């Protein structure tokens, strides 16, 4: 398989799985306005996923469409990082997960916008403005929860403790990404780690939350080794196209 396809698909899977997770809140948000706000974030993220999947399909050049890639691959073929597939939990957990990812995505897309691959650069360029707003939204909520009541603070801290172990994977590099990074196409995410940690630590401090002491990190998403949550998410997302494979609407 060619490296560009693998890389584009990884980026796509991160967006697609996250967007599907976020869309689970639609109609269930804490109140109407916030329900819409998070649904907007989900829509932006689906938009990025669609562009990336279409490009991946084109790069692969084997006649598979973006929909084929989204709906007719199994769990082990998905290469998203584990963080995005983690369950929504309570709203504090959704927000903490989102603020970790938003800060990462802004750094990632800012670099990817300089990629020598014009399509990836273009997709990143468009995403930067959206993610800039996502950061603002999730950060405001993270501070509100962390620096809120005892209850909201504890829930936010629990979320940080639970999700921290999935953040190391964001900055892993393997032979595929190293090779593409040398060509000026992929982003070397290992170089983003320090900046991300500083931004997130600043956010946690403002929110009166503590960064966990542990340095143990989960990994495996890139190799298709997922937590048990992804299978359920995919079965819900894929059920209609799989029951009616050629349905049009």
């Amino acid at each position, binding site marked *: 398989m060619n490296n560009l396809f693998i890389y584009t698909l990884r980026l796509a899977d991160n967006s697609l799985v996250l967007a599907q997770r976020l869309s689970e809140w639609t109609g269930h948000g804490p109140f109407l306005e*916030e329900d819409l706000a998070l649904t907007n974030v989900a829509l932006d993220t689906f938009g990025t996923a669609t562009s990336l999947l279409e490009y991946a399909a084109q790069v692969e050049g084997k006649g598979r469409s973006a929909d084929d890639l989204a709906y007719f691959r199994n769990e082990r073929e998905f290469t998203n990082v584990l963080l995005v597939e983690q369950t929504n939990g309570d709203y504090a957990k959704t927000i903490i997960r989102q603020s970790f990812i938003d800060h990462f995505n802004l750094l990632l897309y800012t670099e990817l916008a300089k990629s020598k691959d014009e399509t990836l650069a273009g997709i990143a360029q468009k995403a930067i403005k959206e993610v800039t707003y996502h950061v603002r939204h999730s950060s*405001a909520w993270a501070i*509100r929860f962390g620096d809120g009541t005892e209850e909201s603070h504890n829930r936010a801290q629990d979320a940080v403790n639970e999700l921290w172990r999935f953040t190391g994977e964001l900055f892993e590099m393997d032979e595929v990404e190293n090779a593409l990074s040398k060509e000026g196409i992929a982003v070397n995410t290992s170089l983003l780690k320090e900046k991300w940690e500083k931004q997130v630590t600043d956010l946690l401090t403002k929110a009166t939350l503590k960064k966990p002491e542990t340095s143990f990190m989960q990994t495996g998403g890139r190799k298709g080794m997922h937590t048990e949550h992804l299978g359920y998410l995919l079965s819900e997302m894929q059920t209609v196209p799989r029951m009616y494979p050629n349905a049009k609407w």
Partner: protein
Amino acid sequence: MSDSQGPLWEVFVQKKAGQPFVHCGSLHAFDKEMALQNARDLYTRRNEGMALWVVPSSAITASSPEDMGSFFEPANDKVYRHPTFYQIPDAIGHM
């Protein structure tokens, strides 16, 4: 309405620079930043504007229905307040 959604805010959208901010609706939020973000997500997702104001509804002083007679009716029979008696030269066109 349950107060667990926070106080009410009024939203004003400016369509283009130089145009007035027009009231377009209300929303719930717990603080200024949330009100501004919610306004953006509720009222500007289809390119409705380029600037926003949010104002706590409680900051608005409104006339009451009982005031209607004394406030507005005296203007009814004073047509001379409308500048409709002037002849406008054709060259000026529609004003």
